[in-house]
């Protein structure tokens, strides 16, 4: 039993101390038997606090430590390393979660939160007393990864992982790669087009011999755990044979004869699309595809191109990977009908539609047959919502709107841009764009959230009105030919992936990382990582940075060929065991076998097979099985401390 225990209560800035009286918790912990020292700390994870713990362990000859702070998901390893650096076995460290499961969960009742924190810390001390010196186990891991989403972030991560020697499977739900970036023309800061960026990434992927790309593909199911996931992929048919060498003229003819027509999602409904399609000549993969949801299978396109196969079937493919990286990206916010006149006033569009409109109109900007002279950009649509759910700033949209306004001015010269903002957030280098737009004559107006910009029809004109704080709250109106709603970012709809992988989703509906600063690409699901705009509103540069970070993290996790796991093993007391085979019967890993010694039969655990699930524990009629780290004495002493 440990009898020289150190206890540290973390304020976590004020995340804990705002609701929990940390000093009181510390004082009560200090009175507990076998506690040698008890301290509070502003940030237990800070270097200075860690060094202080190391000094304490050495100077006070501590044989166990307890840190009451955040979730173990975040800092278990941090403090285990502290223990190791001080010469203490890492399993003589116990983390008590008084943030997620106490101060935040009970922020509405601070005195009760303090009372609960005291009990949780006492339970942690009880566990520390019983803790043993252990050595972690190692399990083999497959050096291959599944990247979900072949947008810029996913493709960039795939390339980096492949370079580091990891085998990569990359799947894309759509039939063409590139995600949103493929839809955009010039990008800030390089003025490359989105397509050029996508082409470069696609070509690199095609040249790599350890990357396999599937388009029209989804995850169907997943079993296993970190290091060894078995994933079943569903690959939907493209209905065009892979050996199709696209003749653009022939393809255009096939498109012409297709009788089906519907709103083109690539152009956000500004144009029509046929059931056989390819959005632009250099789109990848090179061969077109058929939208089966709309195709009537009339066969007219087959008459023109014999590489079209309307009978292709869905395929299922099993792969084994060590980790999964989600790069599923984002979607533009779709305004509600009537929101700033959207879908009610005929000349109200979104920023994404304007971007496509610019590409579709070579000389004059024409919308619904009318030449555009004045454009009003309404900012923060679907972001920083006062009443709606999206409280966050989408970050990219101020820059994107201004960048688009500059393109408009450069391409069409005479158009006037009016920006109805709630304060411009062109952070970093993007501020240069704001300066450029101002210099070119764009008008920037600003309102507060309590008096939002209004869009309405008056005498046949579309009017945008603002109470402009930059001109001492003057009410200003602009007659406009086109209202552009600068819409924010929302995560892509991923219901099926979410059901299978169960990655936590935050209040903003984006995937949640373990910690935004300290573990920004990991999730609480071991072996499932996130990168790019599926995690938060990010621009392309930021998405790529995040994907490279995730690539390195994935590689470091699975490339060693083994992953360290908790030494949680079942142990059988041979004296108590009378071999009834119930434990062997329930063990999913065949880790328990019968042994006979001196005429007595008893169960034995094969440590190599035991995964530490503990399924054998409750079925033993003689309570002969203990799970390391979860022994009766540990659990029961914690129960007693909690109820004390």
């Amino acid at each position, binding site marked *: 039993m440990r009898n020289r225990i150190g206890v540290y209560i973390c304020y976590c800035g004020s995340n804990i101390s705002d609701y929990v009286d940390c000093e009181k918790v510390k004082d009560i912990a200090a009175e507990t038997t076998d506690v040698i020292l008890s301290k509070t700390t502003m940030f237990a994870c800070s270097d200075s606090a860690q060094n202080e713990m190391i000094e304490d362990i050495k100077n006070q000859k501590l044989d166990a430590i307890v840190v009451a702070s955040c979730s173990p998901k975040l800092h278990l390893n941090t403090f285990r390393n502290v223990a190791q650096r001080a010469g203490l076995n890492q399993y003589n460290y116990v983390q008590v979660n008084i943030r997620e499961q106490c101060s935040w*969960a009970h922020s509405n009742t601070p005195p009760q939160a303090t009372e609960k924190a005291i009990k949780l810390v006492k339970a942690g001390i009880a566990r520390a007393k019983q803790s043993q010196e252990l050595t972690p186990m190692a399990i083999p891991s497959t050096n291959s990864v599944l990247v979900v989403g072949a947008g810029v972030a996913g493709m960039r991560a795939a390339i980096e992982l492949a370079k580091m020697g990891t085998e990569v499977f990359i799947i894309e739900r759509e039939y063409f790669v590139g995600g949103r970036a493929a839809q955009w023309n010039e990008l800030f800061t390089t003025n490359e087009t989105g397509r050029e960026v996508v082409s470069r990434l696609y070509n690199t992927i095609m040249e790599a011999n350890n990357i396999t790309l599937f388009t029209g593909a989804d995850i169907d199911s997943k079993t296993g755990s970190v290091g060894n996931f078995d994933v079943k992929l569903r690959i939907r048919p493209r209905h065009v044979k892979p050996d199709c060498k696209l003749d653009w003229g022939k393809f255009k003819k096939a498109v012409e004869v297709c009788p089906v027509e519907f709103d083109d999602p690539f152009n956000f409904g500004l144009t029509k699309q046929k059931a056989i399609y390819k959005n632009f000549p250099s789109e990848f993969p090179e061969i077109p595809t058929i939208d089966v949801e709309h195709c009537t299978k009339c066969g007219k396109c087959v008459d023109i191109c014999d590489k079209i196969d309307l009978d292709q079937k869905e395929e299922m493919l099993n792969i084994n990977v060590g980790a999964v990286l989600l790069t599923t990206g984002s979607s533009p916010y779709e305004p509600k009908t009537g929101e700033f006149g959207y879908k009610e006033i005929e000349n109200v569009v979104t920023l994404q539609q304007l971007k496509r409109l610019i590409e579709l109109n070579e000389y004059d900007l024409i919308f619904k047959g009318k030449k555009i002279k004045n454009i009003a950009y309404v900012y923060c649509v679907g972001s920083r919502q006062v009443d709606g759910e999206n409280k966050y700033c989408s970050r990219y949209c101020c820059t994107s709107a201004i960048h688009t306004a500059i393109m408009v001015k450069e391409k069409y010269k005479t158009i006037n841009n009016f920006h109805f903002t709630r304060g411009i957030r062109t952070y970093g280098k993007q501020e240069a764009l704001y300066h450029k737009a101002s210099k070119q004559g764009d008008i920037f107006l600003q309102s507060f959230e309590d008096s939002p910009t209004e869009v309405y029809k008056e005498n046949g004109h579309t009017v945008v009105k603002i109470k402009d704080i930059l001109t001492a709250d003057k009410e200003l109106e602009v007659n406009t030919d086109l209202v552009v709603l600068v819409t924010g970012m929302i995560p892509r709809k991923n219901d099926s992936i979410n059901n299978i992988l169960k990655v936590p989703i935050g209040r903003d509906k984006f995937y949640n990382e373990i910690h935004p600063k300290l573990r920004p690409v990991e999730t609480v699901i071991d072996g499932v990582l996130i990168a790019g705009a599926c995690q938060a509103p990010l621009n392309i540069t930021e998405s790529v940075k995040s994907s490279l970070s995730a690539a390195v993290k994935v590689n470091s996790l699975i490339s060693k060929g083994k992953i360290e796991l908790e030494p949680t093993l079942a142990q059988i007391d041979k004296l108590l065991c009378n071999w009834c085979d119930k434990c062997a019967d*329930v063990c999913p890993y065949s880790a328990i076998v019968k042994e006979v010694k001196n005429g007595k039969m008893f169960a034995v655990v094969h440590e190599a097979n035991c*995964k530490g699930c503990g399924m054998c524990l409750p079925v033993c009629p003689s309570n002969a099985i203990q799970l390391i780290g979860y022994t009766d004495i540990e659990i029961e002493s914690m129960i007693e401390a909690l109820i004390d």
Partner: protein
Amino acid sequence: MDGKTTAPRILVFSTEKISDPAIDLAGLLKKHYPPTVYTINVPCSSSIKSKWILHALDKGFDGVFIAADGTDCSFSDTCTERTGELVQRTHALMKEKGIDPAKLKMAAICSVCSEPFVKHMKNFVEALAS
């Protein structure tokens, strides 16, 4: 519930990889539940011993809740069945000891089930209080 310590005390057995993240998420999202709910985590919900549950009730907990892995268990697809069996066995033992079986509840809590967890806790505390 007013959150006073006189409210029924519940011991939750959560699982490290599946239900504990959901309980963390509830805190992160500031979804409040009674502060008399305490959690001990285990690797898998099918590893919980009846004697631990009985010990908790014997020592003064008013209820025990198993936040089970359900079908998300990474150890075995028999987890749900095994956890159900241990609940059944424990219910039988509770009856033998004259303890109301309603004091032990189980529900599958997946890693993002913060809302259901909070709802279960509020309902369980209310049920025990009444």
